[in-house]
């Protein structure tokens, strides 16, 4: 199993027979074509996107969602393999290169398994049927006497068999079945079985190839000095000292092209990365901050608090009953505001890209979340044809949303074009921490009304903050709320039976670059939503679990998750003196997760004794990986709650590296326990849904222990006020 395609492999692959069909998306008509790439005249007939079998038996399965650690390198090929009746050790896995025939290729929104569950299985099942038909023809027996297993078709009565390689040519002449029969869940051999991930051995011996490991003959290295303030213009620069650094070849003016604006920069290009970095440090640049030195996160949050006092734009679909009237007449009124900070993604592999522009053609080696999205951006940027952009997708050393924003690739493209050589741009950790884009800082203004029995008769969630859609995609949001921002707090994701309900969005524009960050707005919106449910439970003098279950009576999957959590965490048992438990539940990306966090007093602060999690993500591909992702979400959620946010003062990011932008370390890791709800529901997402409910569960636990209600993240866990 190799990650990067060598030239030899590529030539070999291009001579293979390919069969199968493309599936643009679930529910759409599938265009089915048989093809034979061995003849030039066959070009133009649609290629099988996902399965290649050659006549000496080699099988290649294509993974169309780049792997940043979430496991798509296994999960998507495994969906094909299950139906194709092959095991993963019989196949080679390759990442797709962004070509349209593979369909959407962005890893994001925890979408890979839940959107590709049926198309990938159908791709495998159709090819299997064709191979069986091919065998039956060769043997001149009915297909009903044949079956497929571990890469072979067997004739049951005689025990004869053909390998897939022996059948592929015959199979490629057949019509592709439009509705291949899929296996029953009970017959799955791979799905739901915690098959070891195929790339793990390469990740423990240093051979896995990440973007930063790309090595192109003649390649130069670049380090780029960008505006230290949020944006700025290069008034003048002096590169003479930089040019004196041995190995430095060029000092050039360049730019960082973001979706919403381009910002000027100066690049030092050298034979080695170290020379480029040294040269960069020797640059003298006179910047015009263009007023961006006035930007601060303090002022941003002040603005959110001011906006929170006025009406936002209502989410009309979220309206239930007459909130204003019910709140006005409520027996008890509760109001609270919650704030979540700007955050950097801080993938351990910093942004980097190697790009080689040769005339009107370009080749790219870069850790990116979506090659199909990159191609048109590069084509447009370089004013070349999209078909002239070749993308190689290696493993990503973490991404968390950051590597779906391609500024760093365009930087390398710009420089390669300027110096007419392959150029590798590597961001420093300081670049990554200070430059953004960041998760936007958000505010949730909550109002709740209870009747005399403690029922919630009125619930209002006003979301105040900046809009990723607005800044990154130019959505004007004219009289429309940001529909992403309400995720995890909408009626479907937070189906509490509130007698009246209202939700609104208040746009706060910002020049600070913003972007989705693992679980997008669910990581910010769930904090207010789920802490406030707890506040209402306490106001109603009801146990927070019982309070939730009472309001989720019509949401059986939610109830089951909470009941499982109660059981696994012994919720109803008396805790030792000085301990308390807090819970939260949230649905995001089609999956419900609940956490129970047990805390104890620890001097002026608290210690996390244990985290118990329950996830209902429907049918599973790899349960062990679902646990791993949930563990990872606990770590990232805890980091976001108790470590540093990103703050900006005088236009400068105040954190630069891991000494100021701390992340959780192993000595701070609480005990965790993850349970998966077993069911036959359609698969939900896995990479993100564990994150949103973590901070609320922790803060609810801290309230239960100390009586201190934490409404602003991050907070100091060693010093609870």
């Amino acid at each position, binding site marked *: 199993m190799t990650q990067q395609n060598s030239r030899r492999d590529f030539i070999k692959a291009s001579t293979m027979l390919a069969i199968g069909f493309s599936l643009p998306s679930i529910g759409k008509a599938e265009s089915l074509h048989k093809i034979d790439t061995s003849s030039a005249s066959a070009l133009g007939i649609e290629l099988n996107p996902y399965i290649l079998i050659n006549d000496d038996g080699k099988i290649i399965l294509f993974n169309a969602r780049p*792997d940043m*650690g*979430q*496991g798509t390198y296994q999960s998507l090929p495994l969906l094909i393999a299950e139906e194709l009746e092959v095991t993963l050790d019989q196949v080679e896995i390759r990442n797709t290169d962004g070509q349209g025939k593979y369909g959407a290729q962005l890893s994001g929104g925890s979408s890979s398994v839940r959107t590709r569950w049926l198309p990938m299985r159908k791709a495998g099942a159709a090819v299997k049927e064709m191979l069986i038909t091919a065998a039956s023809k060769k043997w001149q027996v009915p297909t009903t006497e044949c079956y497929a297993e571990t890469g072979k078709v067997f004739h049951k009565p005689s025990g004869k068999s053909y390998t897939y390689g022996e059948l592929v040519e015959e199979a490629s002449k057949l019509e592709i079945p439009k509705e291949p029969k899929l296996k029953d869940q009970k017959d799955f051999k791979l799905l739901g079985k915690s098959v*070891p*991930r195929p*790339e*793990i*051995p*390469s*990740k*423990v*011996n*240093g*051979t*896995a*190839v*990440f973007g*930063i490991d790309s*090595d192109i003959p003649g390649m130069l290295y670049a380090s780029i000095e960008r505006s230290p303030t949020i944006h700025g213009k290069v008034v003048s620069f002096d590169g003479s000292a930089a040019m004196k650094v*041995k*190995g430095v070849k060029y000092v050039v003016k360049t730019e960082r092209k973001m979706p919403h604006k381009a910002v000027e920069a100066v690049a030092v290009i050298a034979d*080695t*990365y*170290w*020379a480029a970095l*040294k040269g960069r440090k020797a640059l003298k640049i006179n910047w015009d901050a263009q007023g961006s030195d006035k930007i601060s996160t303090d002022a941003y949050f002040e603005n959110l608090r001011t906006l929170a006092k006025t009406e936002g734009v209502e989410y009309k679909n979220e309206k239930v009953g007459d909130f204003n009237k019910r709140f006005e007449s409520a027996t008890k009124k509760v109001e609270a505001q919650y704030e979540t900070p700007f955050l950097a993604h*801080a*993938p*351990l*592999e*910093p942004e980097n890209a190697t790009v080689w522009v040769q005339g009107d053609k370009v080749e790219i080696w870069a850790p990116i979340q979506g090659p199909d999205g990159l191609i048109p951006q590069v084509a447009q940027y370089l004013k070349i044809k999209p078909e002239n952009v070749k993308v190689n997708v290696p*493993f*990503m*050393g*973490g*991404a*968390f949303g950051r590597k779906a924003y391609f500024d760093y690739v365009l930087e390398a493209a710009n420089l390669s074009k300027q110096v007419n050589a392959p150029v590798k741009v*590597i961001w*420093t*950790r300081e670049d990554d921490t200070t430059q953004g884009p960041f998760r936007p800082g958000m505010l949730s203004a909550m109002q709740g009304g209870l009747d005399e029995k403690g029922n919630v008769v009125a619930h209002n969630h006003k979301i105040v903050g900046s809009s990723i859609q607005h800044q990154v995609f130019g959505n004007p949001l004219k009289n429309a709320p940001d529909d992403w921002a309400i995720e995890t707090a909408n009626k479907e994701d937070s189906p509490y039976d509130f007698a009246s309900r209202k939700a609104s969005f208040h746009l706060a524009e910002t020049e600070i670059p913003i972007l989705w960050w693992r679980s997008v707005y669910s990581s910010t919106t769930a904090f207010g939503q789920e802490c406030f449910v707890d506040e209402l439970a306490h106001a109603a003098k009801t146990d927070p679990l019982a309070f939730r279950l009472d309001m989720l009576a019509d949401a059986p999957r939610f109830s089951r998750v909470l009941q499982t959590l109660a059981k696994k965490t012994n919720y109803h048992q008396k805790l030792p003196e000085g301990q308390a438990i807090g819970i939260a539940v949230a649905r995001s990306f089609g999956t419900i997760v609940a956490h129970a966090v047990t805390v104890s007093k620890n001097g002026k602060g608290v210690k996390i004794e244990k985290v118990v999690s329950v996830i209902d993500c429907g049918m599973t591909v790899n349960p*062990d*990986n679902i646990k*791993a*992702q949930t*563990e*990872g979400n*606990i*770590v*990232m959620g805890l980091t976001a709650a108790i470590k540093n946010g990103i703050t900006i003062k005088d236009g400068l990011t105040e954190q630069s*590296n*891991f*000494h100021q932008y701390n*992340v*959780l*370390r*192993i*000595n701070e*890791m609480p*005990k965790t326990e993850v349970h998966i709800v077993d069911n036959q529901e359609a698969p939900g997402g896995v990479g993100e849904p564990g994150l949103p409910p973590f901070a609320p569960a922790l803060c609810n636990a801290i309230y239960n222990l100390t009586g201190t209600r934490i409404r602003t993240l991050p907070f100091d866990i060693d010093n609870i006020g």
Partner: protein
Amino acid sequence: MAKYNLTVNGKKYNVDADADTPLLWVIRDHVGLKGTKFGCGMALCGACTVHLDGQPIRSCSTPISTLKAANKITTIEGISVNTDSAVQKAWIEEQVPQCGYCQSGQIMSAVALLKEKSNPTDSDIDEAMSGNICRCGTYPRIRKAIHRAAELMKDGGNSTGK
């Protein structure tokens, strides 16, 4: 520029580099071994951990000029190319890596810990491993895998499988 003699994974190299070039970039770009990773450049994350005469060091903050020709440097590639060391076996058994980027450094720290303490406690693990950041959050599995490696070593292997 100056010439430096290095021994990496038992092989001798002669490299031409500036005196202040960090060992990390010498290993990656001069020697050409890419398993050792860049994460922070300030010895804060541990992704660049290698062994200098058996001791874990942060190669991103070790200038090449501070090394002596007699020093033996071991990188992840020198632990075992066949992933048969106890630590690597345990890492596979526990399915530790997610993105995998930090894992070379994690494994180098774990191998050094197990050489010092063949049966480490959780607090030994915390102490030895807290310099290695994993942004994906594989900490629970790293802890399990180190205990598992200790067991495997008891059964006859050693931390490096050699």
